[in-house]
């Protein structure tokens, strides 16, 4: 029949289309990817040269995500850093106790004026490929990190104290004056001024050593099987599926007892997989923390809490009304009960901030230096300010309405609920209606960089355990990262003195004083210090969650 043939034809055509689409996609799959490593979903590395070591045992299974990059000179996010600190290493590193310790260097000599740092390298340092590491590799790495072609957004921030680094980065000079290769085991840095935090900055991935020979041969794809000097080598990386790290048997600080670490990159809820014995460590979320805290549950003995060097805060743009008035800033800070809200919205999984410096940082004290929850004082501050409250809004003495808008990054399920709680407190205690405005991340950054935001929700993760990393960078009036328009000459003075103060105790005292002044000025409303809540499989020994990203896998053992 005519019509039946038509039906058949329709079906045939559809099948044809499908074949075309499927075929087309497969073809492009095969054709794309110009690297030698072929297949996209499986970028495997052959095990590097070196004996299969029998001293390391065990396999650890963790959950992770695809790193943005495995190039230590480009990485800016914690996710990438987690792998990078295991695969690469630098002259110095941070121990699990947050002590600055030597890594590739066997000694460092600092001149009396604090400007010259001379590093002598160890004898027993090798790349994963087996090649010996020399001072030339170190110099090459530093130069590469600062090179203009690399377009790294961070390297200058961490290596910029070296004399001539800035000029080199901006292409104004061919060489870095302050970087000198003395011999194949010795390298010397000359700084532009005495900077006691220089060593701390060298622990950051920008200063890690990479294999110049590998990069020069394969500039585009070398990060797929990087030849590093760290305790673990990248054995395999299957995009969106799995990353496998394998112990480096010639690691100079001791062969890691743990042989293999597998990161599973997809698969939904970590806790569920943990309970299915698919993962050895899992983060606990707000929904599960009750169960973890319950002493009768089987999660409880495996549960631990680790404070982090991460602070979240409200920031005020001091150049924009009404935040040009310190009384308004204080009023907002005094009328919120952060402790209560942390309890309710986060099940107490965050610690209310007691200052700007997190617990464990040099300069931290137990004393709560932040504005307490005191609604009466808040209202007094409000009265003392040059703004009045009318119909739920602040108005100037001329009657002009000044709305307060908090800008946040909108994100569906992650939209901040604690901010809503704060809003309600400001409404009931002060009678002021604050608004929330959600934008997308890139827009938020653009506006924040342009200093257009009036009030916003911010967070800061310490890059190295030194107060300079937060107090100076965020609050010095000349600092590029000062997104508050904050200017306090007394604070500036303290910070500048601290920059070159060589006596550690006096340095810390200066930073403490600076922190005190900053808090009085209420440029920030520190909200919380983060904590990591994890459950760890009983077979795993020595697991810890350091307060910031530091190498840790070589301190772990798995008894299985």
């Amino acid at each position, binding site marked *: 029949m005519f019509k039946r043939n038509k039906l058949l034809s329709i079906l045939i055509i559809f099948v044809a289309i499908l074949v075309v689409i499927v075929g087309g996609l497969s073809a492009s799959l095969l054709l794309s990817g110009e690297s030698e490593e072929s297949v996209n979903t499986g970028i495997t590395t052959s095990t590097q040269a070196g004996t299969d070591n029998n001293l390391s045992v065990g396999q650890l299974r963790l959950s992770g995500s695809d790193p943005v990059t495995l190039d230590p000179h480009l990485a800016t996010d914690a996710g990438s850093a987690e792998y990078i600190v295991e695969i690469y290493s630098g002259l110095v590193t941070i121990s699990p106790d947050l002590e600055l310790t030597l890594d590739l260097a066997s000694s460092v000599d600092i001149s009396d004026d604090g400007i010259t740092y001379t590093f002598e390298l160890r004898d027993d340092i090798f790349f994963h490929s087996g090649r010996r590491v020399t001072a030339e590799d170190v110099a090459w790495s530093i130069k590469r990190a600062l090179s203009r072609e690399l377009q790294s957004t961070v390297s200058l921030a961490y290596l910029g104290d070296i004399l001539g680094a800035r000029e080199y980065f901006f292409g104004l000079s061919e060489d870095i004056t302050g970087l000198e290769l003395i011999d194949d085991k010795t390298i010397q840095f000359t700084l532009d001024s005495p900077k006691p935090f220089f060593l701390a900055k060298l622990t950051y991935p920008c200063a890690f050593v990479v294999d110049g020979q590998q990069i020069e041969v394969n500039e585009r794809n070398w990060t797929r099987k990087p030849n590093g000097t760290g305790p673990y080598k990248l054995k395999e990386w299957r995009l969106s599926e799995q990353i496998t790290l394998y112990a480096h048997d010639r690691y100079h600080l001791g062969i890691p007892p743990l042989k293999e670490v597998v990161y599973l990159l997809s698969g939904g*809820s970590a806790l569920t997989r943990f309970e299915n014995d698919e993962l050895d460590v899992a983060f606990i979320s707000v929904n599960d923390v009750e169960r973890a805290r319950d002493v009768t549950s089987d999660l409880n003995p495996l549960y631990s809490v680790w404070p982090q060097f991460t602070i979240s805060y409200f920031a005020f743009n001091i150049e924009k009304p009404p935040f040009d008035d310190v009384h308004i800033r204080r009023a907002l800070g005094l009328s919120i009960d952060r402790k209560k809200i942390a309890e309710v919205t986060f099940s107490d999984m965050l610690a209310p901030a007691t200052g700007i410096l997190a617990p464990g940082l040099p300069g931290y004290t137990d004393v709560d230096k932040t504005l307490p929850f005191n609604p009466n004082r808040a209202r007094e501050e409000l009265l003392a300010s040059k703004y009045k409250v009318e119909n739920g809004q602040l108005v100037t003495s001329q009657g002009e309405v000044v709305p307060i808008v908090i800008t946040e990054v*909108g994100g569906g*399920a992650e*939209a901040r609920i604690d901010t*809503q709680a704060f*809003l*309600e407190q400001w*409404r009931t205690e002060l009678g002021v209606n604050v608004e*929330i405005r*959600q934008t997308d991340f890139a827009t938020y950054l653009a506006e924040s960089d342009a200093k257009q935001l009036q009030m916003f929700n911010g967070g800061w993760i310490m890059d190295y355990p030194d107060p300079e990393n937060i107090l100076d960078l965020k609050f010095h009036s000349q600092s590029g990262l000062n997104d508050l328009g904050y200017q306090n000459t007394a604070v500036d003075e303290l910070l500048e003195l601290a920059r070159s103060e060589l006596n550690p105790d006096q340095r810390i005292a200066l930073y403490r004083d600076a922190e005190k002044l900053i808090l009085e000025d209420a440029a920030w409303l520190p909200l919380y210090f983060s904590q990591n809540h994890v459950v760890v499989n009983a077979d795993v020994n020595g697991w810890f969650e350091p307060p910031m990203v530091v190498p840790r896998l070589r301190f772990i053992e798995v008894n299985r």
Partner: protein
Amino acid sequence: MGENIAITPESNELISNNEWVLIWRRLRAKKLAMISLVLIIIIYGAGLFAPLVAPYSYTETNLDRGLEGPSRDHWLGTDRLGRDMLSRSIYSARTTLIVTTAVVVSGSLIIGNVLGLLAGYKGGWIDSLIMRIGEVFSSLPGLLMLILINATLGERVINGVRWFEAHTFFSGIVSSGIASYLTVFAALSLFFWVGTARIIRSQVLQLREREFIIAAEALGASPRRIIFVHLLPSVLFLIILQISATLGGIAGSEILLSWFGVGVQPPAASFGAMIFQGSGARTFQAHPHLLLVPGLIVTILLFSFALLGDALNDAISSR
């Protein structure tokens, strides 16, 4: 079917008054449809009269009584901040009402249908033009457009409305979110008319070759009459289907937009915001009411729209 309906010889109208009464009677007879209509009216009505109906304010937090299930004080329980779920649902209904208004006003409902009719009937270069433009628009990355339009235009529109509010006696327009919804839907309708247009167009293409159309044209009927009186009725069922789907889908769109931070800002209540609080397998396990309350209400709303649309279609085509 086209011949059965609607065109009375004496008039040029699509559906005469007598017909509307008949349709209404048929509709009334369908119990399911009536229930749907009532439900829709209840939900939208609650939204409209929210301040009068809601027992609590939608921002009133009570940190000590968070995450409670249904109780005498709080019929539908409380959310994480101790806000009454019932009140927040009522205000969320209000948000949905606002979104619906924005969608209707922005013309999203009709633009696809109109263009589809035009393309299908006229054919030729008009058809090609409309379809090609459609292809361009439908391939543009809607998400990118949405975010950027909201970030740039949205801001300007909101500031403009804020200025307007400050200088006149109107207030509360910005916080109601209608400004940003209007912007977004007006912009979105630029991209999403294509699907509807295609469906309508294909039906029109099929119909215009039919004998009664050809006859009408041979008799010298004007294109306008042909479109409205002869063509439209046969396509009407599709149009009604599209409109009811769009209206029903509004609640869904609102949820999606909430995800991207578009529309009413917290702490204003919207079903999207409420659903997000409750989504997640473990959250559901611990506090199912967070998801079930808004989820069920939205489901009922969408379901009612769909049933109503179907029933209306049936009533019109006198089945």
